[in-house]
């Protein structure tokens, strides 16, 4: 079980959190084409390497935040606010 550093509560076990997958996905405007909307809804990268993802401290303060995690080693490379730009790029090994 991983540990994550909640920006509000500090280091806690993974079981207190919920992961919602890839972050920094722009929501298309209503005028988006079906193809664009489909891309937004259904298509995700599945990198072997650094993945930028959204987590929520569901069984704690409820805060959503971003995490840069290595999908093989589970090393947490960064934890940053929902509205912050990524501090490092998502890179596949």
């Amino acid at each position, binding site marked *: 079980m*991983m540990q994550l550093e909640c920006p509000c509560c500090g280091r806690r076990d*993974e079981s207190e959190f919920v992961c*919602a997958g890839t972050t920094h996905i722009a929501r298309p405007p209503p005028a*988006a084409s*079906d193809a664009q*909307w489909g891309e937004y809804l259904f298509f995700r990268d599945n990198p072997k390497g650094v993945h930028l993802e959204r987590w929520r401290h569901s069984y704690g303060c*409820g*805060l959503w935040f971003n995490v840069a995690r290595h999908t093989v080693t589970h090393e947490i490379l960064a934890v940053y606010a929902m509205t912050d730009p990524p501090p490092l790029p998502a890179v596949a090994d």
Partner: protein
Amino acid sequence: MASRRLGSPAGRWIDRSQPLGFTFNGRRLSGLRGDTLASALLANDVRLVGRSFKLHRPRGVWSCGLEEPSALVDVDEGARRTPNVRASRLVLEEGLSVRSVNCWPGVAFDLGALTGACAALLPAGFYYKTFMWPSWRLFEPSIRRMAGLGRAPTEPDPDHYEEVAAECDVLVVGGGISGLAAAAAAARAGARTMLLTGAAHPGGALAWRADDEAQGLARAVRQLGVRVLMRTLAFGLYNHNLVAACESLAAEGGELPASVLRERLWKIRARRVIAAAGAFERPLLFPDNDRPGVMLAGAAVKYAGAYGVACGRRAVIAANSDSAYAAARELAQSGLEIVAVIDRRSEAPKGETASGLRVVPGAVVTAVAGTRAVQGCRVARLGGGPRSGQGEWLECDLILSAGGLAPAVHLHSQAGGKLRWVSESAMFVPDGAAPGLVSVGACAGVFSRDAALAHATAVGEALAKGAAAPTAPVGGAGRSEPITCVPGRTSAQFVDLQNDVSAQDVALAARENYRSVEHLKRYTTAGMGTDQGKTSNINALVLMGELTSRAPAEVGTTRFRPPFAPVTLGAIAGRRVASLYRPLRELPAHAWHASHGALFETFGDWRRPAAYPLPGESLEAAAQREAACVRHHAGLFDGSPLGKLELFGADAARFLDLMYVGTMSTLAIGQARYGLLLNEHGTIVDDGIVARLGDRHYWVNTTTAGAERTLAAFEEWLQCEFTDLRVLVTPVTSRWGNVTVAGPSAWRWLEASGFEAALAPHSMRHMTLRESALEGVPLRVLRASFTGELGYEINLPADHASALFARLWERAAEVGAVLYGIEALQLMRLEKGYLHVGSDTDGTTLPGDVGFARGIEAKAANFVGRRSLSRPASRDPQRLQLVGLKPVDGRTALHVGAHIASHAPPAAIEGRVTSSGLSPELACPIALALLAGGTQRTGERVQVYHLGVMTEAVVVRTPFVDPQGRRVHG
């Protein structure tokens, strides 16, 4: 007598003054305090202990530790029965009762052994190949009955278990001298240190020897404040250095109190882990190497030294390593006759042949005599041709395998460490440190004592200081060769005893082109089971390498996945059993309902009244009676579990417009509106009523089941997407009770009970909310209805709910009112055709499918899910749409889940029944259904198929009752 108890002083761990009585397969035997079941059985000359998994071959004690593949027993009977306990780990207790596994009627005469005669029909992967004609299903039940090991208990476990979390700077796994030295060094350097060992005595492989250094280290570790947990086996290492361990707290059998604290699960978060888990001995492969009386050489040495038990009188040692000679000397000193050391290496170590010990180099055991106990063996030179003769016959009752050592690299691998092959000693060792973990001692491949102690001390100190660990001085294991089978023999040579996997099975897998060691494992089942191949994995992959012309390093190992040793389900469940397995919520007025005849059932997370049956009345009859009474008089219902959220903030109105299909920003204060909540796919995830309490203040009722997910959706959109909106969402579900009064006499009842006149139907319209008070208790009264009748949902602080129920109930007789439960409510909402999200919708249902298309085009806000509603698939006229159904005969019930199709299957399914019931008002069955193109099919007759019966039904418009909706206005 072959195996027996040795005379005093042999046996450091046993207490000869404390005999213990126990039973084995009903036979009364006697052992000593300090014995394990295995040592006690051997002391009683019991050599046949169990039967094998697949072929029911006789098996005996094979090892003296947790690697035991064969001597498995079921301990105790009834609720306390624990299956597949390793006899070599089971501490003997007075009154212990055990049974052999996988045999009937008994271990000596086992009818299942007939399968051994059919071994040719049961090769690796036989369940994919044989027994296929005419059908596997014909054979499966009896094959499943024949296979398997112990029997699980069927009654609830009388004992309890607990779970503890801990953290430390340095965690040492293993209590041998390397582990003790590392822990002492880490503690001395100031680290908060813990040490776990599965054993009952410190010292690891030296624990039963009089080793002053090991004892001194054990004392030092305690004096330095290391937290030492004995009988605590670390069974897994998980992400970010979480080590899980199981502490054994009570005897496993014998005379126990009614309930004991049996085991404790430790979850330890360690900054750094030091693995000091030791090594296992590898067995040799030769024909019939599974017979009772064949065992690991190190085990026989330990049985003699620790338990004072001789495993036989005349021993032959099959050797592939230098350790065989030390074992031979020790056993000879204990009084065993060593017939010969049969060394498969062409050269025996220098000096060993001169010591009077008979050594046969370059030779192997080619046959074993005796089925239920070894009676002798034949040995022959390796490399001789097929005509090199029969070899030599040796009479013996014990054959010991000394095949070399296999470091226990499990934790290292689980931490993500890599392995390298040391060909001199034919073993895999850790290739450097793993992330967050360093191995020391035998599990690091360091077998010379001084080097191991120095390295472990340096590692302990380095990790305590956050420095890099020094490289392990691998060596000292001596010379051994990769073990393969004895060529040219037809008798089975077992690689994996527990799963009956022989060298022939591995060869078959190789012939069938299984090359990956992971595939080999799954196809042959080698390395599975309770021992997870502790004594078989290395031999299996060496053999696989030989058959496919690859070096062991190229073949690689299977993943060493946790758990390292079997863990009971009780330990993992801990306290999360019975009512704590899934705690249910109770209504604030639960006791009041219970005292008024409620029949409680579980709905989602809640215990709620399903109905209030009269004496002798069925649930169905009660629901009919209650619903009819609400329609004609009035009824009282507890709606407290309904989800409740309060929203505050300047942007609350804008936010609700973004979340719901309905427009909430145009609500006047005191007005309420129905809303559908969608996800981004346009799918309905919840519905509810939104009421405006103030300019910047809203009250949101969600469904009961949807309270959590609606809150979660609100928070996610606010924090992740609409980050500029100023809104505070507060869940208040358990803060507010909900007392619902419904029926034509509802207001008369409330008026008589003292509610203010402003709440009367003519001054407070349907779908409005008014803040009121009753004797100082604040109320939020919502005029809404899920029954279709005049309805008041009185929200009030939860601790006042019981008092309000009591107050209203005092006047119930005046209006002829009843209490009604969920069942009656469901009937009434069905009569009204009201949607029940999750029953009448699924993961594809869009608003237009359930009659809420209107108004969406006109709405300005880009609400969640909106764009998905304009996809071509969302506009398909043949989508599943919600309709009403009635049976044509007016009598036959339409079952929920029944398929709508033109004829009996196979047929194209046009839809399905989603809600169903007998209408109290119409006195006939009615149903809701999702039907392809349903809204265009009113009046059409369809066939409803359920469990082989077709029922004709007609598609109708809803509501079934009061289609103009006049009744809700009172």
